[in-house]
């Protein structure tokens, strides 16, 4: 599965490596309303994809189709060679490889930070408690909040909670990490601590798909930028080209609005 070094890439900006996520002609609709229209996207191992676009453009829905939180009507999503479909077994297999961080953190408020991190390893991976705790403490250290392990999420700041959420996802040792607007619910002074954690993760070579409007972060870590509007992928480009020479009119308009 794992192959590094060029294996004949053709698409502009795609780096080498095995395909991690392959989305082909994906459609999703509610009644007559299309949420996703003919979306194609290939993410290779080790790539960092940043998806942006106006609200309601289908970014989050696309993300949620990748780990089966949303069902889709037509098309194909293949994660690590597993075609997702609507089969619960396949979805469970995919979720084993994909970690997710939510806009609203979605930590479990009745469990301590440490228990939040060990819950899934113990009950899904059947890991012994001592080992799960050891791993959890390691990741909490990595997101720089080892001293908060025994507190409850409600006692932490938003930025700390989001870092716990990142640690919780990492404890399942995912191959791909997805972030759904991870800093949108944070107070401005807390955005940086979360982004720093994500940059470190990117530096470690994690495959990341990030829905975000943090353009500084995108410039710094993105391998490719994806711009979506009205359920469609409008433009895929390297960050350099994306920010300096956006190709599509809608991209230009969007960038002019958020980079004001």
């Amino acid at each position, binding site marked *: 599965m794992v192959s590094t070094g060029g294996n004949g890439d053709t698409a502009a900006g795609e780096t080498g490596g095995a395909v991690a996520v392959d989305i082909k002609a994906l459609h999703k609709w509610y009644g007559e309303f299309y949420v996703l229209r003919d979306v194609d996207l290939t993410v290779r191992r080790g790539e960092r994809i940043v998806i942006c676009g106006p609200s309601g453009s289908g970014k989050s829905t696309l993300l949620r189709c990748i780990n089966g*939180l949303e069902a889709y009507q037509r098309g194909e999503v293949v994660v690590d060679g597993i075609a997702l479909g609507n089969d619960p077994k396949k979805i469970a297999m995919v*979720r084993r490889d994909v*970690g*997710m961080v*939510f806009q609203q953190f979605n*930590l479990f408020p009745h469990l301590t930070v440490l228990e939040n991190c060990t819950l899934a390893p113990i009950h*899904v991976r059947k890991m012994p408690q001592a080992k799960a705790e050891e791993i959890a403490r390691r990741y909490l250290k990595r997101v720089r909040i080892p001293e908060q392990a025994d507190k*409850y999420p409600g006692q932490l700041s938003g930025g700390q*909670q989001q870092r716990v959420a990142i640690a919780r996802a990492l404890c399942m040792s995912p191959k791909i990490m997805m972030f759904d607007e991870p800093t949108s619910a944070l107070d401005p002074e807390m955005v940086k601590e979360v982004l720093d954690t994500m940059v470190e993760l990117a530096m470690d070579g994690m495959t990341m798909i990030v829905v975000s409007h943090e353009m500084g972060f995108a410039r710094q870590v993105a391998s490719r930028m994806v711009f979506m509007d009205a359920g469609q992928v409008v433009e895929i480009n390297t960050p350099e080209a994306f920010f300096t020479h956006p190709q599509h009119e809608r991209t230009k308009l969007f960038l002019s609005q958020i980079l004001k």
Partner: protein
Amino acid sequence: MTTLDASSVTTTGGAAFVRRAPAPELAPPFASTGWLGWLRANLFATPFNAVLTVLTILLLAWIVPPTIRFLLIDAVWTGGDRQACLATAARPDVGACWAFVRAHLAYFTYGSYPISGRWRVDVFFALLAFGMAWLLWIDAPRRGLGALYFFGLFPILSFFLLYGLPPLGLPVVDTSLWGGMLVTVVVASVGIVVSLPLGILLALGRRSHMPAVQGLSVIFIEFVRGVPLITVLFMASVMLPLFVPPAWAPDKLIRALVGVALFASAYMAEVVRAGLQAVPRGQWEAAAALNLGYWQTLRLVVLPQALRVTIPNIVNTYVALFKDTTLVFFVGIFDFLRTIETARANPTWATPVTSASGYAFAALVYFLCCYSMSRYATGIERRLAVGDRR
């Protein structure tokens, strides 16, 4: 609010305003501390408030002293029959006849359970108390084992202990002889223990996306809630024998038990559903993203939160259920209240105060049971509030 004199304010260095000196201290507000302050703040804050305070004090003065006089000061504590509790020239005011209650205490506890077998009921009460203490004491060791004992071993033991197991030398005691507190405790604990899990299942069923499961749950909940408990009990005890051959018809007490348990489950289902709805969808999604299955998510993530927010409602249902057990009275089962009702008609003890004493005792016992449930729940709530949501 604060006035600044010019000397404490200087405009320098481009800043519009920089405070140079602290504002002078204000005198403490008048009488906001001490007992006088407390009185003002809590009892006489406004004229309306003061009127309410005075009225409340008058009301208490009117009710409390006679109650205490009846229950304690004028009460008769000892005696062998009605003579003890009759008014005489030497003692014109007679209070509660506790001697009557003392004389019937065994009857109130065991009903007509044979005297030779009452130790079995005592053992049952002891086993129950042991199991309850194990489960209700949150920091108790091995609570998993406690749950296994309470929900697995204890019901089986109790059944053979109370009903009988002839090969082991425990003669059969027909349930028609059971009575008093024994029956109340059996009906209430079966109702309490069965209604929560069944209620949870019904609530989940009602929220299910499977039409058959959802439909059945809705029909059950709405039907049972739409019918008075007394009707359910009458149907169980009067109508069931019309449809089922007598040999098949289950025991009268069991019919009442099933009726009470199902009735309480329907109410519990709605209580639990309210709790489930209070858990944000994000919790399900986070658990799904971590690959927890449906039942795991329910057990580890959703139910702990759902039940916690709804503890006051669960206890409310339990308290109502505990008192509703008195309705089995109407289908000929001798629960605690029915034994008091029977005893107060006893001519040996017929006095003007017998009925009042019996009912006062009943009220006291029911109040103690329900109030301790409520206190326990408050304690649990406070304890679980540690990691309150953001």
